């Protein structure tokens, strides 16, 4: 059974979910709702990765960002949270919101203009090599050994720094 799904429809749905969740994450009155919306936004991005034939990256997105980073954010919210803090949160005033919307609209017009002007003349994207997931490690270890080691140094440094900060905080 062959069911073709229009790619544009998938893109629009995923973009809508991601963007609306991201806006909710910024606008939520209750910080916990903000964290949940952030998680949904991350899942939307994972959907994009699946859609773009990068399922491993999508799973990394869900496991690391939703499964660990959102957990860390929730934990931190509960760590610093007080009931009275709601009034202390400064809501963006009307003027700020209008400026933000105006800037976003300007950016959208600019991108649309560039796409309309340059889009037809651009060379077609090179076809994505149909790499199976299992060749990911091959590419990683054979072609990018230096970035891998730099990544290890970066994670080590971040971890040590976080540990030292958490230790001083106690």
């Amino acid at each position, binding site marked *: 059974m062959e069911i073709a799904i229009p790619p544009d429809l998938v893109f629009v749905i995923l973009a809508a979910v991601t963007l609306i969740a991201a806006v909710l994450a910024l606008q939520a009155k209750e910080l916990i709702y903000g964290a949940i919306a952030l998680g949904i936004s991350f899942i939307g991005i994972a959907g994009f990765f699946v859609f773009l034939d990068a399922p491993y990256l999508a799973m*990394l997105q869900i496991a*690391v960002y939703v499964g*660990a980073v959102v957990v860390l954010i929730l934990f931190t919210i509960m*760590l610093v949270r007080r*009931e009275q803090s709601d009034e202390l949160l400064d809501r963006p005033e009307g003027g700020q919101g209008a400026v933000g919307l105006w800037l976003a609209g300007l950016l959208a017009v600019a991108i649309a203009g560039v796409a309309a002007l340059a889009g037809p003349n651009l060379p077609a994207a090179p076809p994505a090599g149909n790499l199976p997931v299992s060749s990911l490690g091959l590419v990683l270890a054979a072609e990018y050994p230096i970035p891998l080691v730099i990544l290890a140094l970066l994670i080590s440094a971040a971890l040590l720094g976080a540990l030292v900060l958490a230790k001083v905080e106690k």
Partner: protein
Amino acid sequence: MALNPWLTVIIWAIVVIALTGPMLTLPMFWSRRKPDPFRDMPFESGQVPQGEARHRLVMQYYPYLLMFVAFDVVGMFLFAWGMSFTKIPLYASFPVLLFLFLLAAPLGYALHLALRRENW
């Protein structure tokens, strides 16, 4: 059967929601729903609840949480390497082993802290 496996997963999710959703929504129609301030109180060993339930946490185990986030990323990279370990020459695995070796330093430091302090 040329259905994309991800599409099948999505259909499976829809089927699960469609078949378990009624278990939650249908009882709303027929079960008794009569608010009672005493019965709907949060359980606190039979006492009237006192104070705030969502209390502030102490910063216990926070460094472990940080380590958890970092090692989640590490684990994902290791899976990518492990899939193709038998397919690549052995010398290509040395950067990954160096990767692990470099991460042993913060892990050792964290465990040193954790074991020296009592309530980490």
